[in-house]
């Protein structure tokens, strides 16, 4: 077996040093009858060539987004990832390192985490960010739990514009901690007003959670909502699913948000059918000690040179055990490196440039769809994703588009299986990866399908 270096002679001589007759003897603590004498009922080992062939067969049964015009979003976005990103994250010193427990030989990881934290704080407009969470949805849930700790209150108010998966994960995380989760259902054609949630905020409310841009693609100013929250002693949590947006729109920090968190997949990371992704989590200096997850901080070494370490770990499970701020341990290290490298390549001009390009592509796509009879873009505002109302049920339309070799959008019925009133709506996302030809193909296919 190519990964196992011990030879028969090694094993014999090692057993002799140990003073055991066989490897089985080393397992003598295993209860009677539980030690298997033969391999389990699974195929035996294969060479690289065979494994690669098997995996390629599975890959060939899928329709990859890179092979067809694709307009899918709803929390995960296809962007161009520069070749440099994948090269850097495959360097063995990054790929095969672990959590930087020995900072003297992990300055590479620690320095990029410090850079990552700075980038995340910058794009969200917040004071500080942590070294990543698992994904956007778990970040949202952890933000709610953090708000409950910080305010010593037990009620969270979720906006109807929040991605339903984020809501579900938040409800799942809160269900056993006596935290009440309140909120309203959203609708793509009922414009949520700034005071949509006002009457739900009371003096028991720990936080209000809004998404920006929201799940239907709309962009709203949440300054008033922040004021309403703060007037009642609650925190405003602003969630996002598209980290590219902040290159084009004002940062949530500018509204007065207390926690800003969401999905960082868009930058540097492949779609990967849903994971691994990278949760971004930022807050104010005031709340930093309530934060979940790992934090990297600057310090000096014994020669006085600048260096970096994991810090404020007294919040964490390995020190605080059942009193920790979260049970998170391993986070999304390598995905945060991909984010950092991509963001470093973009820089100010690139980040804002690619955001503009996304928006312009989405504008062109929206206009092309609006011109199709039976399709209507319902958004007044959007970044790179918007909701389309269709004359036919959206799930059927999406399947019909697949038959024409186009991944046209996400039907809202997939996200809201119990909402009959949303059956005719579809989310469409357009990024810098979509060409004018893709847009024309989508529009003409949609025209045929809706005819």
């Amino acid at each position, binding site marked *: 077996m190519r*990964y196992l270096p011990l030879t028969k002679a090694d094993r014999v001589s090692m057993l002799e040093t140990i003073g055991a007759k066989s490897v089985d003897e080393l397992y003598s603590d295993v209860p009677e009858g539980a030690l*298997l004498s033969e391999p389990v009922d699974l195929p035996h080992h294969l060479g690289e060539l065979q494994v*690669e062939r098997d995996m390629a067969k599975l890959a060939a049964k*899928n329709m990859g987004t890179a092979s067809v015009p694709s307009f899918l979003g709803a929390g995960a976005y296809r962007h161009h990832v520069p070749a440099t990103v994948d090269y850097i994250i495959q360097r063995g010193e990054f790929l095969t390192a672990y959590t930087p427990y020995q900072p*003297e030989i992990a300055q590479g990881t620690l320095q990029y985490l*410090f850079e990552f934290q700075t980038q995340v704080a910058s794009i969200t407009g917040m004071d500080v960010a942590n070294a990543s969470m698992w994904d956007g949805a778990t970040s949202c849930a952890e933000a709610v739990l953090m708000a409950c700790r910080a305010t010593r209150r037990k009620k969270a108010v979720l906006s109807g514009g929040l991605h339903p998966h984020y809501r579900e994960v938040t409800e799942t995380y809160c269900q056993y901690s006596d935290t009440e989760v309140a909120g309203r259902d959203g609708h793509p054609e009922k414009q949520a007003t700034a005071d949509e949630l006002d009457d739900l905020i009371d003096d028991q409310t720990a936080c209000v959670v809004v998404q920006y841009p929201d799940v239907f693609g709309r962009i709203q100013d949440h300054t008033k909502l922040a004021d309403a929250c703060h007037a009642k002693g609650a925190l405003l949590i602003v969630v996002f699913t598209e980290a590219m947006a902040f290159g084009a729109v004002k940062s949530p920090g500018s509204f007065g948000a207390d926690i800003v968190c969401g999905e960082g997949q868009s930058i540097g990371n492949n779609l990967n059918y849903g994971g691994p992704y990278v949760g971004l989590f930022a807050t104010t200096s005031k709340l930093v000690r309530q934060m979940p997850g790992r934090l990297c901080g600057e310090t*000096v070494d014994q020669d006085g040179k600048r260096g970096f370490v994991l810090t404020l770990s007294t919040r964490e499970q390995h020190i605080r055990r059942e009193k920790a701020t979260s049970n998170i*341990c391993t986070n999304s290290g390598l995905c945060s490196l991909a984010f950092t490298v991509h963001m470093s390549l973009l*820089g100010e001009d690139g980040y804002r440039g690619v955001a503009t390009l996304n928006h312009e592509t989405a504008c062109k796509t929206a206009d092309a769809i609006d011109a199709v009879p039976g399709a209507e873009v319902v958004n007044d505002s*959007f970044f790179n994703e918007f909701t389309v109302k269709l004359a036919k049920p959206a799930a059927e339309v999406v399947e019909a588009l697949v038959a024409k070799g186009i991944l046209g959008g996400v039907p809202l019925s997939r996200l809201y299986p119990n909402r009959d009133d949303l059956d005719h709506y579809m989310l469409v996302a357009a990024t810098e990866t979509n060409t004018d030809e893709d847009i024309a193909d989508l529009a003409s296919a949609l025209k045929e399908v809706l005819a």
Partner: protein
Amino acid sequence: MSFTTHTGNRGLVLEEKLIFEQGEPGRTGVDLPKPAGIKSRLGGLDRDSDVGLPGLSEPQVVRHFTRLSQKNFGIDSGFFPLGSCTMKHNPRLNEKVARMPGLADLHPMQPESTVQGALELIDSCAHWLLVLTGMPAVSMSPAAGAQGELCGMMAIRAALDARGENRRRVLVPESAHGTNPATAAACGFTVDSIPATEDGRVDLAAFEAKLGDDVAGIMLTNPNTCGLFERDVRKIADLVHAAGGYFYCDGANFNAIVGRVRPADLGIDAMHINLHKTFSTPHGGGGPGSGPVVFSDALAPFAPIPYVVRKGEKFHLVETADEKDGNKPFGRLKGFHGQMGMFIRALSYMKSHGADGLRQASGDAVLNANYLLARLKDKLSVAFPGYCMHEALFDDDFLKDTGVSTLDLAKAIIDEGFHPMTMYFPLVVHGALLIEPTETETKESIDQFCDAVLALVAKAESGDAEFFKNAPYLTPRRRLDETAAARKPVLRWMPETA
């Protein structure tokens, strides 16, 4: 010869500023088409200020991260016996297949008809895990080991709720990893600690005495964090079941027994498997992980959404708790369907090894650890007698009277070119040194490590404590001031204010 250079660089060890200190306005590492000048529809919220990102060209970015990488120690660099973390070789084949078109570029919200291969892959990965554990069901959702624990404990909570029982106490051995009590607390349980015996296992009598009708279950790591097999594991399972509780097994150390012992045969109800440990998906400097959870029949109906089911030749993804299939999912743990990229790598790893190779891998891991134990046991102080599993645990008794601590020794090991072992964990052992060589190391590399450790111990015994207090000497940075970092946290770069 010791001297300082003009640049601060030392040969191949290059000083590297933060990207924020290198940027120049107008520089970029990407080329984009010119904007068309379309009027924005951003609701009047167009960004009107700089983000504050530095501009760097591609060659600068490549050089920056290459230099950073050279300040890191990975498995690819050398022997990395970090106990309980399982730093085994990460095959590059797995990286290659995870990047295949048709896998890496799949969107989680594609119609089911366009991802049949992906669903089959998840189902196939699940099948391997089920056969290896002997369990009837698995949830592939959890993002990492700690979320796997959350998944298992939430299923227990949901099962108790379904029984109408208000059991809130969870028994956790004091040797447990910190995530165990943190997870139990996150599920609304209270944690009751069980002491260890002289031989590093659960104190069966103390455990039995703590059982009662308010006990929800036990969270037991097996093989445990001392690197030992819990020989009373079946009795523990029987007792907790008889008391009406469930048995959550922390499967972090499944790599020691994979292909040789099926957890189902030990009486467990739930166990997470760290794909980044047992099945070698890369640790990546701290993630991403993946923590699928296997379930007994008693807990299976409560597994979270989403999950894959096979319907004839087709695969179906169940995404809503309302699907009328008799299950009662406790909720959703993650935005989408789990760490697909890790399933691909783990399946590639499992297929490469096969049933025979996985069995060989666990056997070699245990053999390597016992060999290391045998080589060091006369000079270092073994924490508990007998054979170990995949890792060897020592306490710091052998350093008594030398003035050298476990930490000091670890720092000196760094200068010898190895990643140190896990230090001060588990907490049940004073000044713990937990050493896990893994099966992918040669006898020669283990010998070299043991020789170096023995030489250092001799040096410590010779009274040269000062040498150890100041180690490491040869690293890009020497010991870092962690107290200062925590006292006045600097968590981001800030532009110098005039």
